């Protein structure tokens, strides 16, 4: 299913007879029961908005249970979409519209709706049973609580049932179409082109024509409902954003990560191998990659995370592209294997899609609390480079860069993403692969001198040769015991050990010569906001806003956490204060303080949720 819609004007045809109000951006959250298809609804709204040329950022949020009890608060699943005619970097703070499919969804989300925002409810889901499931004594629609909002109650279930009558669906099946009714209504309200969704329905229900027909009808019914009801005085129009020239598609973080790995493989002339054990929110990387066997991608669902990392090291030993992906608890299990990779000095990517911790923690929630584990979570002195992706689309580039460093320096690299990035979506400019720099990899050639091969002879970056089994004359044996430099033989010599510890550290430090210096946006004195990973968008946006309010604020974002870019110390010095916002208790701040002794200020949130821009703005205004 490939379609390139180059002209937003097409939408004219779908336009409403009602007046159209132009706005620069909208944040909508769709909430309902896990079984209500909210994730699908959100994905479609994201997609059509992206296709409309808007910039888009999303935030899906779902429970840990597969199917938490229907109608309960624990079962509420949500999807937030922010689309705009300007470049945006977060899924938005306050909601312009909230679509709530049941009382549990309403009460758990209403707090985020802006005053005067649209609250669209499924009126059919507010009977006594629904209220009881949501543990409500009283109907939340009674009293003054909803007064501040523009409440629109729609009998969605009834209207959907009517719309799909005659398709042959059972009542239960018919009711499952109501998310498409809601979708139609939302699409109408924001002037979205629903034809991509019609195509989606066609493809998805190829083998269930009745269901396809019912969903199409529900979607149209929702649209028509908006057009005919008196509730809405006007529709809203969000013009295309002026993004960089190019062809775009909408990507989720885990998808972009998978594609980035495939691109890195291609750029380095390797075939990709990913050893993984399923774990939320990392599994989708495995799922995605398992579909591309025709690209030579080998995925291995190992018996556990230990086997996963070890299999990947085995692959790298064999000259392949060894990658492993997991999340917190799974990464904890890989630490011994990662230590071995440090000792072997083989390239390896360890992807950690961070989630709420500690322990099993909050599996479906986001957090940035595995940075120090990435730095120090191995026995002995076992440094390795660490890179963090900053947004869904950025995962693509981060994967390539990680592999570039891993192969150049013959070292395992940790790539940090998180649940927010992994499941979030944004427009991604499709790169021209032929223009991306190749990843040069040289394997030493066969040798017939009869001399023993020297696997730890180093180059100018202290990187050792990647000799590949099958090459004649290069037979060598390596392992986890300390080894003599150059020869790679086991060595218990004290001086050699010191030398090797220093060398491994220096090699990782050398990465700072291979990575970009950190760049600052905004002011170059006053307050510096220093961010890493998925908080990029919120921090960037907040600094823009703070400057708009006349504050002297700069923003720097760290892509590499280890080593730090060479110019970081010098940049930190320019500012009077440094604010480090993190979704942990201050892990980067800890590293920065230890290294630069800046006395940075932390803004720390550990709630399984990303920062809102306003939380950041408030803090910046307080400090700047």
């Amino acid at each position, binding site marked *: 299913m490939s*379609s390139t819609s*180059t002209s937003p004007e097409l939408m004219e045809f779908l336009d409403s007879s009602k007046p159209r109000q132009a706005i620069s951006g909208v944040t909508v959250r769709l909430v309902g029961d896990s079984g209500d298809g909210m994730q699908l609804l959100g994905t479609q709204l994201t997609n059509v908005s992206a296709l409309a040329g808007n910039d888009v950022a999303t935030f899906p949020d779902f429970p840990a249970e597969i199917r938490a009890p229907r109608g309960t608060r624990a079962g509420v699943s949500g999807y937030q979409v922010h689309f705009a005619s300007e470049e945006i970097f977060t899924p938005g703070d306050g909601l312009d519209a909230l679509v709530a499919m049941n009382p549990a969804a309403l009460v758990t989300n209403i707090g985020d709706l802006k005053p005067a925002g649209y609250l669209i409810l499924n009126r059919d889901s507010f009977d006594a049973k629904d209220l009881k499931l949501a543990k409500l004594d009283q109907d939340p629609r009674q009293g003054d609580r909803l007064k501040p909002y523009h409440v629109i109650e729609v009998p969605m279930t009834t209207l959907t049932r009517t719309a799909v009558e005659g398709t042959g669906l059972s009542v239960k099946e018919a009711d499952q179409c109501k998310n498409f009714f809601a979708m139609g209504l939302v699409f109408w309200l924001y002037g979205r082109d629903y034809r991509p969704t019609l195509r989606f329905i066609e493809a998805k229900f190829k083998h269930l024509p009745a269901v396809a027909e019912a969903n199409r009808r529900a979607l149209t019914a929702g649209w028509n409902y908006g057009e005919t009801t008196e509730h809405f005085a006007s529709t809203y129009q969000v013009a295309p954003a002026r993004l960089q020239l190019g062809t775009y598609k909408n990507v989720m973080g885990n998808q972009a990560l998978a594609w980035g790995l495939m691109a890195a493989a291609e750029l380095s002339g390797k075939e990709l*191998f990913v050893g993984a054990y399923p774990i939320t929110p990392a599994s989708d990387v495995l799922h995605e990659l398992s579909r591309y066997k025709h690209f*030579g991608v080998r995925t291995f669902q*190992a018996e556990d995370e230990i*086997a996963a990392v*070890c*299999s990947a090291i085995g692959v790298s030993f064999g000259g392949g592209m060894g990658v492993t992906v997991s999340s917190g608890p799974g990464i904890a299990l890989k630490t011994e294997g990662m230590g071995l990779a440090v000792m072997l000095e083989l390239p390896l990517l360890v992807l950690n899609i961070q989630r709420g911790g500690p322990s099993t923690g909050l599996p479906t929630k986001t957090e940035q609390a595995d940075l120090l584990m990435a730095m120090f979570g191995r026995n002995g002195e076992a440094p390795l480079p660490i890179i963090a992706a900053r947004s869904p689309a950025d995962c693509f580039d981060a994967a390539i860069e990680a592999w570039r460093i891993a192969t150049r320096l013959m070292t395992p690299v940790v790539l940090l993403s998180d649940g927010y990035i992994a499941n979030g979506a944004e427009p991604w400019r499709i790169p021209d*692969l032929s223009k991306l720099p190749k990843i040069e990899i040289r394997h030493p050639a*066969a040798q017939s001198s009869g001399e023993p091969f020297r696997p730890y002879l180093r180059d100018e970056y202290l990187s050792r040769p990647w000799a590949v089994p099958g090459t004649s004359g290069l037979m060598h044996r390596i392992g986890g015991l300390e080894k003599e430099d150059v020869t790679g033989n086991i060595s218990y010599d004290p001086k050699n050990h010191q030398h090797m510890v220093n060398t491994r550290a220096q090699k990782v430090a050398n990465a700072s010569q291979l990575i970009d210096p950190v760049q600052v946006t905004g002011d170059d004195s006053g307050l510096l906001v220093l961010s890493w990973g998925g908080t990029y968008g919120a921090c960037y946006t907040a600094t823009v806003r703070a400057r708009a309010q006349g504050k002297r604020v700069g923003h720097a974002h760290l892509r590499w956490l280890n080593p730090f870019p060479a110019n970081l110390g010098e940049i930190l010095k320019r500012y009077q204060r440094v604010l480090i916002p993190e979704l942990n208790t201050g892990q980067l701040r800890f590293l920065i303080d230890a290294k630069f002794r800046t006395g940075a200020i932390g803004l720390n949130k550990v709630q399984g949720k990303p920062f809102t821009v306003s939380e950041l703005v408030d803090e910046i205004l307080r400090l700047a």
Partner: protein
Amino acid sequence: MSTDLPVLTANDFTSDQDVRWCPGCGDYSILAQMKKILPTLGIPPHQTVFISGIGCSSRFPYYVNTYGLHSIHGRAPAFATGLKMTRPELSVWVITGDGDALSIGGNHFIHLMRRNVDLNIILFNNSIYGLTKGQYSPTSPLGKVTKSTPMGSLDFPLNPISVALAAEATFVARSVDTNIKHLGEVLLRAARHKGTSFVEVYQNCNVFNDGAWDYAKDKAVREENTIELEHGKPLVFAGGKKGIRLNGFEPEIVNLDGRVSQDDLLFHDERAHSPTLAYLLSRMRYPEFPEPIGVFRAVERPTYDYLVNHQIEQARVQRGVGDLQKFLAAGDTWTVT
């Protein structure tokens, strides 16, 4: 340029490293047999890889002049699986100990068996932890007094052959370190088997568990205490004087004294459809029974590395070789001009 294959010798497989096992250790004998059979396989050293875990036995790779990976404790099967999935043309050997394979590495061991990755795994079973100086292992007998069990161990031992068979192994064999002819033959059979070949070798640790296998090693008694399995042949031992007959599901020892003939005995079938016979044989333990040595089971099943790579080929046939640029550009896209 000559295309003749050079004739390889044990020397070609000897590395420049000093061998550091204790004098008298059974590991030497296994190393010697390995270096004897390797040159006969027609695979040059540079296409051979030895992967081990941690333990005395796991020092093995340093002593063969091939590619080698001395990995971490218990995980060698996982490294080997990754390597073989991506480099199926290499000849891969896994060297492990009873602690390495069955204690910390038990899970990787069973998953290796079921996947049937085309490699050979040799378990040096000395029924003790050698490298850490003498704790009991999963194959140590109940009541074993060791450093960590001064009043005797309480863990019922695992039977490596039974476990391998239950984990769907396609090739399972047993030999003895000093029975060098037998060992050499078993290693050769293992090397030739397509799929995971599991060989348990009774290995003497003369420092921490000396004599554990004397019953199966000593010339004087080994004929009484072991029984050589031969495909299609009746189970005969003690120089032809005794045999094994089936009594229901329990084997029993019979004297071949004329009243019972070889035809009454249990016949070995290493290719049996079901692993039940092999399992039954694995339950024959000293001192109740002579212990079988040789090949318990050898059946064919597609190997994991073959299947993985075959799926890649299939995918390419079905969908064409992937074109990444085209792939990335596909789907719902829009252009900003």
